[in-house]
């Protein structure tokens, strides 16, 4: 029923609006003084020359990649879990095959060193 989401919808909108609303309201009370030295990025008091961009190892990326696969996998597991009493043994084996294939992928990723972080 869509109607039951009414409260959630309103809460969603309020929760998003709270942050900008508070910041705009706070503008009436908070001091604001433009000083160029204040806006320098903080790096332990040292003057900063370069901005970090595109300089990081690709390892973080692999984490996201493997995560995505397992994220999609959980999406398939949700309907299975919620209808477990109906699907019974058949569903159990079905998902068993599904998961075994994924576990194979997991083992491959492990053997390839994608899940090793200590070099």
């Amino acid at each position: 029923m869509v109607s039951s989401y009414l409260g959630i919808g309103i809460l969603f909108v309020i929760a998003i609006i709270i942050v900008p609303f508070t910041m705009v309201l706070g503008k009436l009370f908070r001091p604001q003084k433009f000083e160029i030295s204040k806006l320098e990025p903080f790096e332990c008091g040292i003057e900063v020359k370069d901005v970090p961009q595109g300089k990081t190892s690709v390892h973080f990326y692999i984490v996201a990649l493997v995560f995505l696969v397992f994220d999609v996998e959980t999406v398939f597991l949700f309907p299975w879990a919620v209808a477990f009493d109906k699907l019974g043994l058949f569903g159990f084996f079905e998902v068993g095959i599904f998961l075994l294939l994924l576990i194979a992928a997991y083992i491959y990723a492990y053997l390839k060193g994608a899940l090793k972080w200590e070099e």
Partner: protein
Amino acid sequence: MMSYVYDLMKTPFVLALIKIVILLVVAFTVIAYITLVERRLLGFFQSRLGPNRVGPLGLIQPIADGVKLFIKEDTVPIHSNSLLFRIAPIFTFFPSLVGFGVLTFALPWITPASKMHLFALADVDLGVLLVLSLSSLGIFGLMLGGYASGSKYPYFGGLRACSQMLSYEVPLTLSIITVVMMANSFRLSDIVTAQQTHRLYFFIPLIISFVIYLICMIAETNRTPFDLPEGESEIIGFHTEYSGMRFGFYYVGEYTNVVFLSMLAPALFLGGYDIPFVNDIALWQVYPQLISILGFCSYAIKSVLFAYFYIWVRATFPRYRYDQLLKIGWLVLLPISLVNLFIVAGIKLFLLK
């Protein structure tokens, strides 16, 4: 005039608004005071007093902190991506706040006129799934905040936050899936009802899931021992460049997550608003109001236990290192939770039939 107001009260929109106002007031009070409770408790753990000067027992301390942050200057650094910098705190804040909407706090309230009011904002069918899908958005707050600052420490904080929250989301989801499997519903009230009818709290059959949930709960909220994104003594944190109320929203967002996850945990594993050792539903037929209130208290106490667990862990443990954290997430928790899935399926299929 009064009848007009009364009529207005009956429309679902206004009813929902009233519920939201109550929910937000209570939620923000709890979130504000959990910061004080944490500081006082840490004080007691560390043989000191904690804030006690501002008002009686330091009760005005959270308000003072909040107002202070509110009237503090707001800086947007030069190298930052200004728009992104401004909108990033929204993402850490709203998923958990919306999550409060799907929690059911007690058995339905019966008015003298025999009307039934749900003790929840919206007890939707999607329940846990909605919570999970929204909390998957929480990562953007840290990630974008770190990236948009245009400074190195936040950049590292953002990267760490990213891989940490991704790594622990899968085990968390898998552990919740086992609960869904037992209850055959995403709805939180159904999950609690299943525990009430079985007369068995799920943390007994799902002990592995419960432990995984406890670990992932701490990791998802970036708290000690998994507080790498804001490891103050290493990289100063993804919110290094944030000041004033924007920082305040990160601060509040963290505690919102803490409160929310420690309110979700009892519903999933400890029977939620069920009063232990009592047949709730039978009693509810007789004394509906009393059981509703007692159930709410029971729920509150269970949630406080989890919140206490958070603070206790914070006072005790050192911090993990980045690679160890990922190792635990991917090489320990993920395989265990996958195997656990089969175990629970087997239990459900062959033992509980």
